[in-house]
Structure formats: structure tokens, C-alpha cells
């Protein structure tokens, strides 16, 4: 694509939507600079993270709100408090993930392209089966799936569906249709696996992700999803 202002190749693309009017700009590096648009080099992930922790932290004096008690929570597993985590960006023990779950959720989503729930391998000892087992994955050696409680399995699939629905909405909003199609296909497959999984499972478990897809509010919805 050519630059809007000269013959060079456009490397900076800006999309603005103001009052429902969409404006696109395609500029080369030089013209972008002369217009005052400087493509920012993304900050390293750790810097981003600590910055984000500080911003998101409930303890930070945000918009006239007093510090919430969440900042004073201490992990029963290791004695780490949230302020310590905020400072170092690292956790003290496995229990920290439960202790600081609500504070961690938005932070983790941001560090992992919106990912809030594990979608990968499950250790044999956990008694769970691979939530992705239904999806044909190339190069994935078949793993001996332990006979796991169907309920757990169902919950993992439900979590995955909720996540995918959210991603689908985001992809459509960003006009990434190719990506959206992929997500849709995966959703279809997951729906296929979900139906016969556990006949006695309460209907609520299945309805949960549906209602969430409608809300489209990433923050609290993800928290209420467990």
C-alpha cells in the first residue's frame, strides 16, 4: 500500500472512529513522523506488567476511592501480600493464585492476549482430561486420557466456550474476519463435544457461558466464570 502523502510504501496505519465516522490514514515512516505520529516501540512485557499492576491495583488511590481491603490480603500459603506482588511482579507460592485471583485476572488477561483460562495440557495426576481433546490438533500425540469426572471436563469446556465467544466478539469488532472464522469453527466443534458429555449435569452449567457471551463485558464476566 502506498503512503497517502508520497510514493513510499505505507508502514504506519491509523484508524480513528469519531462520531461513527471512520477515518483511515496510511503513511510511510517519514510522513508519519512529520504528522507527529510516532510508532511506539512496545515496552518489554515485564515493564508493561509492573506498570499495569500499579494502575490496576486496588490499593492505588484511584479516582477518589479509598484503598480497598484487597491490598491488605495476605496469602495464607506463603505470607506474600498484594503490595509485595505489585512491586516485584512475581508470586510466592501456588496458593497466591487463589488468594489474589480477582486482582490477577485482568492482569493475566492483559499479559496473555485476553487469555483468562488454561486451554492446554493437564497433568495426568490431576484427574482431569485435556479440555482440548475434542479438537483435532496437528502433531499432537494422543495422550492416555485418565477417566475423569465428566463434570470437571464439562466445566473446562464451558470455560473455553466463554473465552472463545469473547474472542469472537473482539475479532469481529476488529474486523479480523479470518480469525473470527477460525474461532467460530472451534466453537462449533466444542458445542458438538459438549452435548453428550454429561447427561446429569445441571442445566445451569450449560447456560452460564451463553448468558456471558451476551454481556460482552470482559472484566467482571471473566471473574464470575469459575
Amino acid at each position: 500500500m502506498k503512503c497517502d502523502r508520497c510514493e513510499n510504501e505505507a508502514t504506519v496505519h491509523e484508524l480513528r472512529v469519531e462520531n461513527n465516522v471512520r477515518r483511515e490514514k496510511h503513511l510511510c515512516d517519514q510522513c508519519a513522523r512529520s504528522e507527529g505520529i510516532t510508532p511506539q516501540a512496545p515496552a518489554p512485557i515485564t515493564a508493561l506488567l509492573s506498570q499495569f499492576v500499579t494502575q490496576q491495583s486496588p490499593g492505588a488511590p484511584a479516582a477518589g476511592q479509598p484503598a480497598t481491603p484487597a491490598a491488605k490480603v495476605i496469602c495464607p500459603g506463603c505470607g506474600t501480600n498484594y503490595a509485595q506482588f505489585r512491586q516485584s511482579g512475581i508470586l510466592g507460592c501456588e496458593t497466591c493464585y487463589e488468594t489474589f485471583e480477582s486482582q490477577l485476572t485482568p492482569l493475566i488477561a492483559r499479559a496473555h492476549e485476553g487469555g483468562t483460562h488454561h486451554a492446554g495440557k493437564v497433568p495426568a495426576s490431576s484427574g482431569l482430561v485435556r479440555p482440548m481433546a475434542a479438537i483435532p490438533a496437528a502433531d499432537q500425540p494422543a495422550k492416555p486420557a485418565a477417566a475423569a469426572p465428566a463434570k470437571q471436563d464439562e466445566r473446562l469446556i464451558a470455560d473455553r466456550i466463554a473465552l472463545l465467544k469473547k474472542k469472537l466478539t473482539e475479532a469481529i469488532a476488529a474486523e479480523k474476519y479470518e480469525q473470527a472464522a477460525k474461532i467460530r469453527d472451534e466453537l462449533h466443534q466444542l458445542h458438538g463435544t459438549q452435548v453428550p458429555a454429561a447427561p446429569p449435569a445441571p442445566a445451569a452449567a450449560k447456560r452460564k457461558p451463553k448468558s456471558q457471551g451476551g454481556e460482552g463485558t470482559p472484566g467482571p464476566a471473566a471473574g464470575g466464570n469459575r
Partner: protein
Amino acid sequence: MSAPVPKPPFSSAAVKRGAEWLRGQGADSDVVVSSRVRLARNITGYPFLSRASRPQRTEILDLCRDRLLTCGIAQQMLWVDVHVAPPLDRTLMLERHLISKEHAKGVIPGGAKGEAQPEVADAPLTPGAPVTNGESRGVAVSLPDESVSVMVNEEDHLRLQVLLSGLELSAAYQRVNQVDDLIPGMSRATGRSLEYAFSPRFGYLTCCPTNVGTGIRVSVMLHLPGLKLTGELEKVRRATRDMNLAVRGYYGEGSEAAGEFYQISNQTTLGKSEAQILKEFEQEIMPQVINYERQARRMLLEKRRRLLEDRVYRALGILRHARLLSPEEAITMLSDVRLGVVTGLVKGVTEQDVNQLILLTQPAHLQRVLGQEMDQNARREARADLVREKLAV
């Protein structure tokens, strides 16, 4: 001046032979030097290393050592207690990509650097503090190919990695996945059981939440001299960053690129399966970068041949005649010669020769190959001699 080196974990023959990842083979080896997949794991029931006391660190090390040496990862396993290994051996393992810089140095994860160590025996160690007094840590390595290495007590209790030559991410994942399945279990020697810290929601739990979930880091070491010469490299850097990938230097995090070697790796570890992450990397991202580099090389050959030839032969001339070589100059010149080899300008030298020289000219390797400790000046002489000998016409 030459002090004998105390019982080396790697014989000088093994050092010369080099590891699997240096073969200069495997898919797309003209651009991809090596592929690495690593998994981060912690053991349930112990605090992460940011909060572990000295006795706990030792207990973790003992438990892991026993499991790693008895669970059948490879026919032969080498174990090195990194905290008591001589500095030269630690550097040697770092140069061979068997341990990280942090592991060689020994740093408690997190916090500001350089805080004082607490003297209380079972107090948690200060995050970020250098492990000056031999905090227990180790590494297990599969022999003879060194393709599997498992670091114990790095940032997480366990860091499993498989390193292969060329673009072989699927094979590397399959192998590391197998190792991952073998490690948990009962340790007879310690009477304890090793199971991973895992939650259904967050997956494998890691010290830093940026690794949580699959705990997987997929990375490839690329040689991109064509893109550098044509000035296109910055675009690749920008594009890969937009895709949430990290671009790093020759020795990973925090290191500078040396001789146009770059590492690209994933950052997202949660919300995608291992298969998805691998597929995106191996089938979507890598082919593009590889083609881009090949195009740049073709362009140089066709349109700027004189420039390319000058660069390559100049480098070859320096390496064949220099009497003193610094490590920086060696890797820069070897990188240019490698470009000559893969574009067919240089005959009689293989990719493997160059890969091997890049390793052998590094400080610790040089000293081990020659069997003596040397100061910087002596190393510059020895480096030039070694390179001249290997590249002699």
C-alpha cells in the same frame, strides 16, 4: 599461567564434538539455527523460589535430582550441581545453551538487584539478590546429544528444555512433552513425591504470571544477515512484536544480538493450547520470516552482488589471516562467512563448521578445548589460531 581445570563435567572431546543443535541440519537450517521448547513447572507443596528458604531449596533440589536421574529421560544423564561448579564450567554450559544466564549467575527471582542476603538459616531469600554463597541449584542433561536439559531452582523449580538443530519445533515439543510426563512420581531416595503445581483455571502455576498456563516458551534462533543488510530487519522486529512475540539476542533475555543471530519466542502462555501456540509459530510465523530472509539474500545476490561478495570475502580474509581475535569480532565475521556459505559464495566450508566455530571461539570453550585457563589477551591469540586452523584453505 595455566592452572589445571578441576574435574570438568564435559570432557574436551565432548566439548569439541558439540551438541545436537549445532549440526547445521534440520528443516530450513539456512535461516533457522536451532529450535527450542521449554516448559516451566513448579512442585506442589513447596513455595516458589521467590519465597523458598535455604532448606526448602535443598529439599527441592534433592527431590528433583533423584527423579531426573531415575525416571528414564535418556539412557545416560549428566547431573551438575551448578552452585558448586567452577565458574568456567558454568560459562561453558551457558555457551552451550544448557543453562540460562540467570542460572549460571544464580539469582533469586524477583525484586531489585543487589539486596543483601539474610543470614537467618531458614528465612526466605531476598528476591532479586544474587546467590553469592552457593544457593543450591542444578541441571540435568541428556547425553551424548545434550538435546534435553532440565534446570532445577532457576526462576521456577523446574525448567525443562529441548534444543534441536533447524526448524524442528514439533519434534522438540514431542520430546519435552514426554520428559514432562516422566518427571512426576515417587522419589525413593528422598521418600517424597514430586507432583506439579496445577490449577484447572490457570494451568501450570509459575512464579511469574507471564508464564502461567502452559508454561511453554517456544523459541527459534534465526540467522538474518540478509534482512539486516537490506535494512528490512526493523520491519520484522516490529511485525513480530505486534504478534506478541519477543525478539532477543543470542543468549536470550536481556542479551544483545551478536552477528545477526536473533531469537524469536512466544509471550502468550495462557488461553491457547500448546498445539495452537506451536502451530501459529511453526506454520504461520516462521515460514514468513524465513521467506523474507531468503528473498533478501536473493536480492543481494542478484542486484547487489558486489556488496555481498565484498562483505563475505572480507570476513573470510580476516578470519583466515588475523593473529588476534576478540569474541565480538569472531562472531561478526563468522556470521558474514555463514551468509557466504548459505548463498553458495563460499565453498569448502559448511554451516556446521561455522556453527561449531561460533561455539568453540567463546571464552569457556576455547579454554576447555586447549585445556588451560587463559587471560583475555591469551584468548585472543588462541581464538585467532583456532579459526585460522579450521578455515585453512
